[in-house]
């Protein structure tokens, strides 16, 4: 087993944005290994340090933090012989790697509690709350202002959910945009590298202005080729870093199916309130229908766990019963079951069919076409919710982005999570984040104030495939509007 990382005295750097109750936030077990920032002299070969970086411990690094444990006893001493492309890219932009962050083992979890290093928590008002998962350590590091930027991985919401719980910005790019080479996979067809920061602007600067979105990585077979990148970028705004028109004329869709029973009242109110404020700033807000939403969560868990059970088959060096935590074991069993010859047709293949329908739902509501689809979807009005008004004879309004909460609740207390909140409840946290993952779409969670609450909620914007640049531009505007509301 790993030694628990020593808790280091928190050294707050110059806080640029003093958040409410900032002083009460304390790190709790969010780092797996650390290399304290040496702000003064970087080695001559390295570019000038321009920002500090924490990396989720399922993304390989070689120096100065040589281990990549994935929070699994299996990889307790694993020193990767190579470094993930995304880390190298950020270092070339001047990132100084200062910590590897705690997570749910192999990224499997929603609260960063299923870790060989022990659970991650955020401290709010002196009590420990869930940091969200699985990139909880990264979110806490950013929220505590210990780093400027953190890398996470987002398979079904693992960057957006902790960002929402911890009150920071979490961005999941279009699938295939940022290289996964060096990311220890959970579910390859859903995994993306995500970025967490305190402002959308920092993420936008790296992804759009410094051109991370353009870079193809031949070592990642799911990294989009250069020609495809160019084709996808046609008709996309803001790719070259040009500032958009803010919220003016932007159409935001509120998916009616997201108004679910499990959605906490305070969060729902904040969502409605936020939509209203955005409308005041020139956005047009309309209801839209995503009829497959209610099946998306089950489809997600079938596909993700099937792929996970396959990916983890390699860790057979010692008895797997000893080497994996409970949650990982549960997921391997579920995944193995859905792939078994008897269950395959009923689960895995059906889930893939649902996945196509989820993507089709999105393609129908977005004004932009999905560049990866050959044919435009035909609209069948009968499948749509009755609540959706028609814009014209041709159907309801098409939108630029979807606007919805990132999670149905605020960050729960850690003890409630640990003391056996049902497994299904934990899976339920992902209900608003998995649809974008299934469809490979870009999404960003920005902090959303909640009336009478110290805790932040997350407001999620989802865009059409490869519309990342404009998504980040609009999210920045949205974020500014929301910040002004508190």
């Amino acid at each position, binding site marked *: 087993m790993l030694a628990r990382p020593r808790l280091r005295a928190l050294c707050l750097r110059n806080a640029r944005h003093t958040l409410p109750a900032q002083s009460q936030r304390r790190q709790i077990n969010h780092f797996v290994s650390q290399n304290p920032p040496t702000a003064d002299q970087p080695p001559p070969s390295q570019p000038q340090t321009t920002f500090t970086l924490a990396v989720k411990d399922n*993304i*390989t690094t070689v120096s100065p933090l040589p281990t*990549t444990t*994935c929070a699994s006893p299996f*990889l307790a001493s*694993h020193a*990767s*012989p*190579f470094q*993930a492309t995304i880390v190298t890219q950020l270092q070339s932009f001047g990132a100084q790697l200062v910590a590897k962050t705690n997570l749910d083992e192999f990224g499997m979890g929603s609260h960063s509690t299923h870790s060989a290093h022990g659970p991650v928590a955020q401290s709010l008002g002196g009590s420990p709350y869930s940091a969200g998962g699985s990139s909880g350590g990264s979110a806490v590091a950013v929220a505590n202002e210990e780093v400027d930027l953190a890398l996470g991985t987002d398979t079904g919401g693992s960057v957006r959910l902790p960002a929402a719980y911890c009150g920071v910005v979490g961005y999941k790019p279009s699938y295939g945009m940022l290289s*996964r*080479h*060096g*990311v*220890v*996979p959970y*579910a*390859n*067809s859903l995994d993306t590298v995500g970025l967490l920061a305190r402002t959308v602007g920092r993420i936008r600067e790296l992804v759009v202005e410094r051109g991370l979105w353009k870079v193809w990585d*031949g*070592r*990642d*077979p*799911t990294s989009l080729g250069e020609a495809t990148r160019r084709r996808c970028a046609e008709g996309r705004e803001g790719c070259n870093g040009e500032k958009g028109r803010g919220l003016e004329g932007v159409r935001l869709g509120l998916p009616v199916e997201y108004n679910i029973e499990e959605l906490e009242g305070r969060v729902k109110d904040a969502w409605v309130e936020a939509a209203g404020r955005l409308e005041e700033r020139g956005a047009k807000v309309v209801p839209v229908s995503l009829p497959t939403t209610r099946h998306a969560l089950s489809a997600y868990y079938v596909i993700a766990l*099937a*792929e996970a*059970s*396959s990916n*983890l*088959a*390699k*860790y*057979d060096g010692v*008895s*797997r*019963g000893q080497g994996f935590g409970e949650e990982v*074991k549960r997921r391997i*069993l*579920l995944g*193995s*079951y859905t*792939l*078994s*010859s*008897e*269950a*395959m047709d009923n689960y*895995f293949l059906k889930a893939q069919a649902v996945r196509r329908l989820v993507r089709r739902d999105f393609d129908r509501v977005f004004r932009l076409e999905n560049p990866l689809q050959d044919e435009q979807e035909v609209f069948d009005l009968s499948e749509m919710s009755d609540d959706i008004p028609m814009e014209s004879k041709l159907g309801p309004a098409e939108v630029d982005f979807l606007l919805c909460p990132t999670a149905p609740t605020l960050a729960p207390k850690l003890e409630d999570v640990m003391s056996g909140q049902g*497994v299904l409840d934990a899976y339920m946290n992902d209900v608003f984040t998995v649809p974008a993952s299934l469809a490979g779409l870009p999404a960003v969670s920005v902090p959303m104030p909640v009336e009478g609450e110290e805790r932040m909620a997350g407001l999620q914007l989802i865009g059409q495939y490869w519309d990342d640049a404009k998504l980040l531009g609009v999210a920045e505007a949205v974020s500014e509007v929301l910040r002004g509301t508190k």
Partner: protein
Amino acid sequence: MARIPTAELSRYLFAGQIGHRGCLRASRIRIAPTSSSLQTRQFASHVESQAPTATTVPPTPLRKQLKEQAKALKASGQKKKKKVDNQTVPGWELTVGIEIHAQLNTARKLFSPAANSFNDDPNSHVALFDVAMPGSQPVFQPETLIPAVRAALALNCEIQRVSRFDRKHYFHWDQPSGYQITQYYEPFAKDGKLELLARDGIAAEDGESITVGIKQVQMEQDTAKTTAQPGEVQWLDFNRVGVPLIEIITLPEIHHPATAAAFVRKVQVMLNAVDACVSGMEAGGLRADVNVSVRRTDDKCGTLGTRTEIKNLSSFKAVEDAIIAERDRQIAVLESGGVVEGETRGWAIGSTETRRLRGKEGEVDYRYMPDPDLGPVVIDLPLVQYLASSSGLAPDAETDQLIEDYGLTAKDAISLMALDDGARVQYFYNVLDALEQKLGSASVDTIAVDRGLSTLAANWCLHELGKLTELSNNLGMTHKGECKVPSADLAALLYHLHRKEITAKVAKELLWAIFRGEISQGGVTEAIEANDLWFHELSEKEYSDLADQVVEGEDKVLGEFLRFAEGKGKAYPQGKLMFLVGKVMRAGPEQRMDPASVERVVRARIDEVYIPGLKSKE
């Protein structure tokens, strides 16, 4: 991994309970020796036998196995039925389907740029992905498609524009990722066929020719090479992990054991001819699994009997023998009122029966899943057309040419084509070219072949060269058709032999000397000269005198010739003639005599001298 009953899994999934004897405990890997010392190649399918029922046999040397087989046969008092007479069992129909794995001839592995090596230092060509390093990903190497598509075209398959890769899961130490990447749902080639001719060695019952349908050809990864060491230790060479293979799957359309063996042999020839394959069955580059079932010939229900699978057959003989044994076993079971179980069986070289490896309950659920890292493979028509047009003469056409234009027997032609993975026939061309050049008979019109020369060269390239390797010597044949006996030296040897400047006996001794390296390259003529091995043939007079001497007192034999001359005997007594020739050969200085000359002289003396002599005696 022991299989968890679905019922138990369901219980777990719906109630969160799992028995203590759950899969996590059972998944402990059992390290057991495998029977891989003879053929160190272990294909993925082989390792399926690691369920608890698996029989793992300690490695036994081939020679020992063969000896034991002979002993067992003798002890049983059985006379082995000749295979030719054992192609059918009255009242029963046999049905066989075959799966062949062949290693592709490529520079790199299937999903990593590591070199595809054959005999390099162990673990010297291993990429991170090959050993499943966390965070590494497969990168498909498109050039592996070239031999794969060539092979599929040689088997008359339809190349699929879009194909995909799937993961096949099972645990074994030779598969670091816990799964093999293969093409299960959408293979790259389908619906092929291969025509087998009588000369290919099919069963007589199949007549002049038979066509075997090929269901699909798929690309997949090879596993690491396991080498058993003393004391339960296995050495692993990851150079082979991820090396590209193709798996060829036939329809169940073969009904005779010899035809099945002929099919595998012909596939090997076809793959060699298009340069798709690294090595043949002898070297372990090709392996076959066979599916066998039987049903009564009067069975009208139209469905095949329950089939069993025999895995990892490593020679053509094993294919035929295993099928015969399994067919007979199934018939015996059915005739005694039993039921054939669907199961996997094994075959040891030289045995007389197949043995059960595991039944249905021991089967591994491979949990096939499309590989989520790998996109579809798109093969455009122009590539297929280019490869089709650049594949050279098809082996059947080449065999025809050897028979019709070079005057070879069908048997020799097929042997030449098959030996040394297709390199032997190239060697033959090299020798023949050099020989013709020396004789100045190389004509501009290459179609006209001096059949005397071509059959002479073929005889030496096949049979005399074959004798060199009888004691397990290696010819060291390269794919360019050169070996330890340089083609130019064999041609020099045959040049002198053809011109009767040396005897066949001397030529054979010289061949051994060349093979052993006692004659330096290009030094054949010098060696003959230095050792005075030239053929100083007896004169006609000396031959006649010798013959006269030998025939003394053979009046009884000569009488046969007289009978023939008088029209009393039906056929010329060739046997008696050869008897006399033999006597003459033994009586004279062998190194100065040519059997052909002796035969000519003796025959002339019989007609001209001895018969008139006999007549005058009467």
